[in-house]
């Protein structure tokens, strides 16, 4: 009876695991890229890579914001509407003669206000996130349409429109914006205490509360960040298409959520990262870009997208369970 504690093989630490998981989605993305490079010569061209980066950028930023909310166990259906609405606001402000930086700042501030309103609805009014953000979605589109009367507002500032077209060091500005969002988001989520609080609230709000976490403030924070990301995307979209139009970005909320979930975020909260949603968004963008280059019939394209989503998430799940 002297058997001492046998050392059990120590489980892989969770963090490494997460990075590995990220890596393997990355592997999938790279695989897609290799396959497409072989299938069509134009895929690997510099110009197409730039296009691809541009095409995935906006959903990627939305997905990062959305992920903060999903980690707390919530959902933000309003991001598409915020994007559309903010294209209108920034377009109007610029056309009214405000300097671009001021117009952008004001638009971002509006995003913060919308996010705070969501937090208020959830925390103070006790509304389910699904409902309050759905209501904002509906109302914001209405307000935007009312302001523009269904018209698009043509932005009369070429420098502003140029921004999204240009590159810096050979990388499209839009992709720089992803980096600009992703790095602070990564530090915030994985290396700051507020990031920890997002996870803990999503895992068990009551336990967090009893451990001194300000649960309400954490929820405000998550929705504000999501809306802020959306407002930022609104500015980028206005720059890219050169108009303010409240009906734009319809359905982007679902794309953002899908990117996030493909990237490993759990809709039950407490599981998620920053790199996951980014990879998710660029996987979706690659599928569309590839299908366009291969001139796949638009209808087939939808079918393939659906099937690929299933396959990707399935294999990803297999790998995670297998570990």
């Amino acid at each position, binding site marked *: *009876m*002297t*058997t*001492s*504690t*046998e050392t*059990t*093989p*120590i*489980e*892989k*630490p*969770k*963090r*490494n*695991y997460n990075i590995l998981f990220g890596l393997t989605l990355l592997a999938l993305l790279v695989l897609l890229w290799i396959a497409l490079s072989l299938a069509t010569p134009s895929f690997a061209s510099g110009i197409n890579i730039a296009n691809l980066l541009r095409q995935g950028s906006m959903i990627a930023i939305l997905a990062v914001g959305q992920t903060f909310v999903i980690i707390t166990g919530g959902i933000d259906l309003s991001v598409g509407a915020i994007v559309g609405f903010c294209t209108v606001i920034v377009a109007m402000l610029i056309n009214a003669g405000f300097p671009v930086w001021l117009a952008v700042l004001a638009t971002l501030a509006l995003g913060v206000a919308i996010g705070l309103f969501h937090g208020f609805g959830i925390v103070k009014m006790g509304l389910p996130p699904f409902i309050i953000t759905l209501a904002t979605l509906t109302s914001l589109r209405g307000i935007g349409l009312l302001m523009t009367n269904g018209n698009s507002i043509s932005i009369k500032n070429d420098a502003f429109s140029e921004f999204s077209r240009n590159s810096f060091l050979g990388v499209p500005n839009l992709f720089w914006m992803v980096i600009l969002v992703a790095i602070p988001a990564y*530090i915030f989520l994985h*290396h*700051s*205490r507020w990031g*920890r*609080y997002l*996870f*803990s609230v999503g*895992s*068990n709000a*009551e*336990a*967090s*509360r*009893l*451990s*001194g*976490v*300000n649960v309400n403030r954490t929820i405000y924070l998550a929705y504000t960040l999501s809306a802020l990301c959306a407002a930022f995307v609104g500015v980028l979209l206005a720059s890219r298409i050169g108009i303010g139009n409240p009906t734009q970005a319809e359905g982007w909320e679902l794309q953002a959520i899908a990117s996030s979930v493909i990237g490993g975020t759990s809709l039950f909260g*407490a*599981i998620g990262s920053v790199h996951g949603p980014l990879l998710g968004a660029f996987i979706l963008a690659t599928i569309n870009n590839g299908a366009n280059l291969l001139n796949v019939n638009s209808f087939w394209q939808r079918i393939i997208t659906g099937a690929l989503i299933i396959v990707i998430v399935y294999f990803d799940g297999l790998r995670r369970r297998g*570990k």
Partner: protein
Amino acid sequence: MILSTLDGHDHPAPDAAVPGQPILELKGLEKKYIGTHALKPVDLAFKVGEIHAIVGENGAGKSTLIKLLTGVIPRTSGEVFWDGKPVALATPNEAIALGINAVHQEVVLCRHLTVAANMFLGEEDTRFGMLQGRTMVQRAQKIIDDLGFNLPAHVMLGDLTIGQQQLIAAARATIRGTRFLIFDEPTAYLTRKETEQLFALIRRLEAEGVTIVYISHRMEEVFELASRVSVLRDGTLVGTRNIAETDDAELVRMMINRSIEQIYHKDHFEPGETIVGAKNLSGKGFEDVSLSVRAGEIVGLYGLIGAGRSEFVLTLYGREKKSAGEIFWNGKPANIRNEHDAMKLGMALAPESRRDQGLCLNLSVGTNLNLPIYKRISSKLLISGAQEKSHAERQIGGLRIKTAGRHALASSLSGGNQQKIVIGKWLNHGAKLFIFDEPTVGVDVGTKAEIYRLFSTLLSKGAGIILISSYLPEVYELADTLHVFRRGRLVASHAHGQASHEEVLTEAIGV
């Protein structure tokens, strides 16, 4: 009364298996999790009609064994024989069909269903395919009443306290025409009175020839009930003893491979200044409670389930609103609006329900341990990785939390080890007043002794402690002042050792 007919179901009565013959035999049963060898090959036979206790340290593999026997998890290797025939036990249904049932360690019932619906879940009464809701409530009520549990059958399960839920789980397991019934720490959340009721129930089942497996960290329960006892250590079966041929000391030695001379370790300190005082405090679930805690003393709160102790401390801690009365901190009236205020003053609360209030189960052990102190271990913006690591590892080492590492998920720990996290996070934080609500639920003897020693350390540093426990020996031995709660009121107070167990119990029940 024959329990298996109590619910009117025609379950096969335990056939006339000969008492003393093995009914369930394990040969080389083994379970490996990724990274953990939870159960090393075990050979063990359970005899018809015996009460077989299983004891062991936290994480020794007791619950794992139970989960294997009830088809909850698949085994890695080995064989199980039921009545001499090999069985796969691949699904819970298969176990239920054989007559193997369990009351699991964590209350696993549906909070959103009524008590009655939970009791008959999977075996609903139907007529022409329609649920007989009213009949089921009546039948459930009758069963509950017969067992002497005074609980309503039609309320949502989630509205009951955990202790009450545990009773329902026990009641539920007994009505399933069972031949083999496993209790995994059923008394953890029960008071002495309820424990007696449960024991009566278990003896009735034994008399009917049901084989009982009983897991507990409380030695006196093992000696009171069991005929044989098996000891697990680190997933290995260390030995099986007839209860008559062994004693406390031997079992403890087998369990932890060393002996402890004394479980209830208590140093006396000269009480200092009053830290916290409640004056005529009322709130949801309790009324007009006045008491105070001084530096260097342990104030114990004893009472039956639902006596209002938890609500009282939650109000003190700012989680619930007080309806009347005042709270004093260091002699001055304190305005505690929320938990954060309480923490800032210097309070710490380890809540009673680790699942609902204590732990973020799907986060890592380290994150859970550091949750209250992230502010302290962050520079302006960033968390200090080194401090995060050192604080987590100090508690893992100090409390001997059995885990694959600080990055392992809290949900992968055994029940007792989860409980250690709930306590450990407040040790990291440090405070003037520690409130421990049922701190040793599911904790093994060795660790219990360590936790009590830890109390002494806290006291020696000038802290005060409020200790709530439904386990009378614990509060009785440790508390400098013992307050007894009944129906939301503080009905009696005693200094250490002043009143007998019986007196305290009588006050708590109020006969």
